[in-house]
């Protein structure tokens, strides 16, 4: 009953009542569109659905296939300058990688062991960590390296570090200058942004084959595949860092008559340094997430045991390798974050402290040299000891767990799957995919216009036209359904868990490591257990998408809730609101920007799981993409499916982004949202930032 009393009070705080009405007008309009859509669907379903059998190939697909064959032939003939350049580049990367491998992981005949074994590698890693991130990070880095060995994946772990390292160095070398340029030029931004969108949303399976043809089978192809996905973050975040430099500082330095070059090196780069390191951190995480995908074309590293486990039906094998990847991700994330904090502290450090640090660094360097010497000359310091073996017991336990799921749990979970699919997923899919295509298209366009305005409508129209042209309309709608339903679950989870975390530091501390693990564990690892629970179908694919997308959405909501100023919360408390009212009337409405952002990211993360969904029984576009990769007669159709996924991604992103901007304009400033966004980009929570 008290809710009735406090509701108008909350409303009275808003500046314009008209706005509230408008807000409701949009909701009513959405409702109307859906009602009319359902009514039309009821009488027309099953007509003009543009359904296409899974093995059919249309003229458009044939054209794409011809185009792809043409590129392939050009690549193998080796006559054009482009191909030669690609080969040179690949040779160069391969030789760098091989050189590093001979140092760390692969012996070069006649030497029976690599130049530097585990002791030298760990000492070197420790020294670099100490120099870049400080001694505290050693407490994470050294145990992590030891864990790689104890889990039984020393060589694969170091190989993955090498691949990731090379990919990050190249990404930074290309991405930072490009980001700087974007930060200064609206024209460059307008040209580069769609390219970055494309690179991030195009499923990697579509370009695995062409890349391995153009750059040859080997480490180079794996690194280039990684680069395509991992470069955009550092470009975007660098550009963002430059754009958000305080205007006052920039004007002041401009008036001092500096040249452009001076301004760049003396002012902009130092000021944006921390943001750029955040960009590198994100690029590193993206590169690691490609480890398993790259293993499909023999990419070295931990992706290979993950796929081995999947191939052999060994849950435990995949899981242990997955843990090693999670450890690596958390280690790299925390260390680069510590390094970025240090960049700021270093400039403020006093002389005595600097001298002490230099001394410690010197001592560390000597210790490292000794370790390198031992590691080069003695077997015990080179070959990682085979005991204690943590990998085998964990693997066995996980396998037992899988057996338990199969025998004791799976009949229960199957009924959950059946009910959900029949009562919820199938009706929604029928509405989207079984309505005549023009009805669905009109409905989506109207929804886009209502939520995101004219710009969203424009993007939606273009994307839908593209999907229509690519001849995979029906499958696109099936995929869209799964994405929308999975995102709905993600948002629901994000609100429930996010609010819980946002309101309690303790809960946050406990839950966040699990979110980090969920975000960095390769999705292939949890495929087998969900197969056991739910069998191969669309529901299973959705579960995989939810597991992958929920962590980032939960973190966004949690940070949004925490971002509500303490004054507001205290004011509400003093006026006698209870806990439930606090959440629904104050905290959730105040963090509406974060909610929309969580929706946006949820959609894109779920969409990025479409291909894995195709391997889990979801069919539709994901299946077409896998089909194109696995069967050379379907390359054209796979390409069409890949582009359709990109178009769906851009459409959903624009609708939600413009929708969020509209909401933000009526409420919090968009800067607040970007700041929050930047913090959540870290898989780690940043040191506590006080708001308000």
């Amino acid at each position, binding site marked *: 009953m008290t809710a009735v009393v406090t509701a108008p009070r909350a409303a009275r705080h808003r500046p314009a009542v008209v706005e509230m009405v408008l807000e409701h007008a949009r909701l009513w309009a959405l409702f109307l569109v859906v009602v009319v859509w359902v009514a039309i669907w009821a009488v027309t379903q099953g007509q003009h659905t543009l359904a296409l059998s899974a*093995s059919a190939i249309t003229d458009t697909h044939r054209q794409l296939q011809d185009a792809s064959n043409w590129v392939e032939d050009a690549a193998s003939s080796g006559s054009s300058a482009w191909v030669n350049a690609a080969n040179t580049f690949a040779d160069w990367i391969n030789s760098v990688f091989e050189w590093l491998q001979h140092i760390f992981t692969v012996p070069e005949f006649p030497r*029976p062991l690599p130049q530097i074994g585990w002791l030298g590698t760990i000492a070197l890693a420790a020294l670099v960590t100490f120099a870049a991130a400080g001694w505290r990070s050693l407490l994470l880095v050294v145990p992590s390296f030891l864990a790689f060995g104890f889990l039984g994946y020393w060589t694969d772990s170091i190989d993955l570090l090498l691949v990731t390292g090379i990919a990050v160095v190249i990404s930074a070398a290309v991405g930072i200058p490009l980001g700087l340029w974007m930060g200064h030029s609206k024209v460059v931004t307008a040209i580069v942004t769609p390219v970055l969108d494309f690179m991030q949303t195009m499923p990697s399976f579509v370009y695995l084959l062409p890349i391995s043809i153009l750059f040859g089978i*080997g480490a180079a192809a794996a690194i280039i595949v990684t680069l395509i996905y991992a470069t955009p973050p550092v470009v975007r975040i660098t550009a963002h860092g430059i754009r958000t430099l305080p205007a006052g500082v920039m004007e002041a330095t401009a008036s001092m008559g500096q040249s452009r070059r001076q301004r760049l090196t003396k002012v902009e780069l130092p000021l944006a340094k921390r943001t750029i390191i955040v960009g590198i951190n994100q690029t590193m995480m993206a590169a690691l997430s490609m480890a398993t995908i790259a293993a499909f074309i023999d990419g070295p590293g931990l992706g290979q045991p993950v796929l081995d486990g999947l191939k052999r039906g060994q849950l435990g094998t995949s899981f242990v390798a997955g843990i090693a990847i999670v450890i690596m991700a958390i280690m790299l994330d925390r260390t680069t974050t510590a390094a970025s904090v240090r960049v700021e502290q270093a400039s403020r450090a006093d002389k005595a402290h600097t001298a002490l640090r230099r001394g410690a660094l010197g001592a560390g360097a000597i210790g490292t040299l000794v370790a390198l010497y031992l590691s*080069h000359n003695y077997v015990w310091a080179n070959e990682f000891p085979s005991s204690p073996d943590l990998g085998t017991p964990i693997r066995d336990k996980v396998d037992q767990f899988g057996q338990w799921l199969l025998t004791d749990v799976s009949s229960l979970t199957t009924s959950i799957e059946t009910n959900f699919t029949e009562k919820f997923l199938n009706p929604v899919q029928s509405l989207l995919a079984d309505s005549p295509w023009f009805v669905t298209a009109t409905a989506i366009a109207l929804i886009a216009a209502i939520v995101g305005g004219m710009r969203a409508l424009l993007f939606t129209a273009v994307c839908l036209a593209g999907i229509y042209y690519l001849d995979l309309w029906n499958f696109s709608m099936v995929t869209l359904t799964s994405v929308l339903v999975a995102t709905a679950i993600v948002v629901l989870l994000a609100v429930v868990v996010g609010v819980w975390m946002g309101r309690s530091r303790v809960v946050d501390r406990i839950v966040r490591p699990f979110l980090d693990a969920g975000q960095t564990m390769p999705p292939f690892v949890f495929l087998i257990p969900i197969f056991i629970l739910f069998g*191969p179908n669309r529901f299973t694919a959705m579960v995989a998408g939810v597991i992958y997308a929920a962590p980032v959405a939960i973190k966004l909501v949690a940070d949004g809730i925490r971002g509500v100023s303490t004054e507001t919360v205290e004011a509400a408390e003093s006026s006698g609101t209870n806990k439930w009212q606090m959440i629904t009337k104050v905290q959730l409405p105040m963090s509406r920007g974060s909610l929309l952002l969580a929706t946006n990211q949820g959609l894109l993360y779920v969409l990025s799981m479409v291909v894995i969904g195709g391997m889990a029984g979801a069919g539709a576009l994901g299946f077409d993409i*896998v089909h194109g990769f696995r069967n050379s007669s379907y390359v054209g159709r796979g390409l069409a499916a890949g582009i359709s996924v990109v178009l769906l991604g851009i459409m959903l992103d624009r609708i939600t982004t413009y929708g969020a901007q509209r909401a933000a304009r009526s409420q919090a400033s968009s800067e607040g949202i970007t700041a929050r966004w930047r913090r959540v980009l870290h898989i780690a929570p940043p040191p506590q930032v006080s708001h308000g």
Partner: protein
Amino acid sequence: MRVKRTQAVLAAVAAAMALTLGACGGGSIQNAKQPAGGKDCGDLNMAVNPWVGYEANAYVVGYIAQTKLGCTVNYKDLDEQVSWKGFGNDTVDVVIENWGHPELQKKYMASKGGDGTAVDAGLTGNDGIIGWYVPPWMKDKYPDITDWHNLNKYASLFKTPESGDLGTFYDGDPGFVTNDEALVKNLNLNYKVVFTGSETALIEAFRKAEENKTPMIGYFYEPQWFMSEVPLVKVDLPKYTPGCDADPTKVACDYPPYPLNKVVSKDFADSGSPAYTLVKNFNWNNDNQNQVARWIAVDQMDPTDAAKKWVDANPDKVNAWLKGTGVTS
């Protein structure tokens, strides 16, 4: 598979190590000696296509090439399409188990009008069978289910939310040959093909169906290690006759038998490497492959260890394969 290579080289120099360890009295690292049979072999680039039966072939041949012929074996985890492409630029020498793939033959085999980078290296001795299978408990309960004429009678058993009023028929990895959509249509079966999209998904589904005694029908194949865990029962489709599958949209007959073969790059075949002779001679039966595959998949042995175990137990076969290489075990 760098680990495997590392381990293998380590094994190759173990003898040298043992000697020097005694001499130096410590764990210092000494250079390796040239392996025993190290003449003319050089690198052997072995594609490892993504299924366990293939791994069994690849690691048995690779292990013999390494230990008896002194080759440096590079195992490359690749799927079929990428492997065949690799013949052209010498990054792949051998595909050790090939399931037909007329579309790839057309592209890369001179005899089929391709660019001539791939050549046939004879049969592996394994007989590939593709077909429709049900878990064993269904055969016990519905003995006549193995005749396709009765499939419509049982269609309602196989209903899932994926297929509405029809029965669900599960298909596997899209890289494998399938006519199932056409078969369902041309045999007028009340089923819908659901694409699981991967071998793992299919195997887990069959395992679960047998464990919980739930109905399931799907595409499967032999040789396959999983058959020794759950002996799936084949459903008889209309008999295959040569040419009955000529038009992929009109297929109404069972899959043809697939005598599995080996494919190698032209350069490797012409190189005169003893490894090529070994690959050409290699021939074993489905039981042999299933045995090694089971060690890898079920007993979780390292593929190289599994290969060693089999090679040590079967010297006669191995010797026959080594004929013409100038080396005997």
